[in-house]
């Protein structure tokens, strides 16, 4: 069972629908005990980084414990940003610091939010992005972006280069929305489900 972690960050029905479409059994939950027994975790999230404050709790601890036990974890959008140290969007809200650096706003010379389909550039071998072409288009909608780090599996260019996907052992993050990225996105979710 894949637990979809509901920490109050917006709309999660699309993620649930897409995971079920690729054959996964899911449960939306904010219960640390359900998180503890899940075989995989998906943490969506749209909107303001301050919502991650909801992870400063037993729920967040349960997520961290599962991650340290090697349970595959996929953070989407703000759910990926949470994997970093924090975001200038809500400096008082800590991230999980599983990847280094802070998420920052786009520079003023580009329109923000970054909305629409943009290309990814593959950086290194990735289990999450297996079978995805270099230059594939994925759907984005966000105003803050994560830095490019050693564990960046793919990056995207918009007012500079940012992390489109990060990957380290059992920890995966996607800034784009796989659940809204057509067949390419569904393939990425399939890859995660098959781990």
């Amino acid at each position, binding site marked *: 069972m894949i637990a979809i972690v509901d920490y109050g960050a917006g709309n999660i029905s699309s993620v649930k629908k897409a995971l079920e479409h690729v054959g996964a059994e899911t449960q939306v939950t904010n219960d640390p005990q359900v998180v503890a027994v899940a075989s995989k975790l998906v943490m969506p999230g749209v909107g303001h980084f301050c919502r991650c404050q909801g992870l400063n709790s037993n729920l967040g601890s349960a997520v961290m414990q599962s991650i340290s036990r090697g349970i595959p974890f996929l953070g989407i959008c703000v759910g990926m940003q949470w994997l970093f140290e924090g975001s200038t969007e809500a400096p008082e809200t800590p991230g999980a610091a599983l990847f280094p650096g802070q998420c920052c706003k786009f520079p003023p010379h580009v329109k923000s939010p970054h909305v629409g389909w943009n290309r990814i550039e593959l950086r290194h071998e990735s289990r999450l992005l297996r079978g995805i072409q270099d230059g594939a288009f994925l759907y984005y909608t966000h105003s803050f972006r994560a830095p490019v780090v050693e564990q960046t599996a793919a990056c995207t260019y918009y007012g500079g280069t940012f992390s489109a996907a990060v990957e380290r052992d059992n920890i995966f993050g996607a800034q784009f929305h796989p*659940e809204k990225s057509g067949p390419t996105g569904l393939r990425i979710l399939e890859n995660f489900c098959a781990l």
Partner: protein
Amino acid sequence: MKTSAPSDSLNNDVLNNALSTHLAKRIIACLDVDAGRVVKGVQFEQLRDAGDPAKLAQIHAEAGADEIVMLDITATAEGRRTLVDTVRRTARHLFVPFTVGGGIRTLADAAGIFDAGADKISVNSAAVANPGLIGEIAARFGSQAVIVAVDARRGSSDVTDAEVWVAGGRKPTGLKALQWAREAEARGAGEILLTSMDRDGTGAGFDCQLTAAIAGEVSIPVIASGGAGNVQHFIEVFSAGKADAALAASIFHFGTHAVAELKQTLRDAGIPMRWPC
């Protein structure tokens, strides 16, 4: 599909945009829905039936539409709520962004639409009546989920005189479109959906002047709507009109243009498109 050659200055604009970003311009298929069926009016009147929304949405997405917008066009006028069941049925097998508008008056209305599977909601009349609604929905679901739809009419006047109309294009508000777009952004809108009521349903082309004026006024993406008739109109609205996305309804439903064919032609003209689509 025939296109006339774009002018040199137009090509330069497009090229500059392409160099600064790979972000694709979006082609959005719009389903105007009345009582659970897709219809499309000419200047919001004379509705013609073009089918089942769930089926059409999926057909458009598979054909390469970058997004789907569903507008319950009679909801406001008749005081009805958007048909949540239609949204749920349409969202079920749709894996591209899905926006729903029409008759959303409160945060609770919006929450019901999101729960049914929409990714974004579009507000129009209710936002004009209660601008605080934009911020309320944005605070709960994020700005990316809130589109403010601006239906503007200017006749032969200057773009600065374009006026906002509500209630499905039946009621003038006295609000200037440019000023309202700026306020909508300040209150937390993530995108502006600009419909030229002068052009809507005419197939005479988008109002590029008005679109460019709004795009220059706000820093959030602008979706141009109203008037798409041929591929040249799309080239114009993405270059001279500075639109981030273009929305059309009837030209897709009635098979005038396959989306993939339209996107191929736009790519050939140097407009960045999601490809393969």
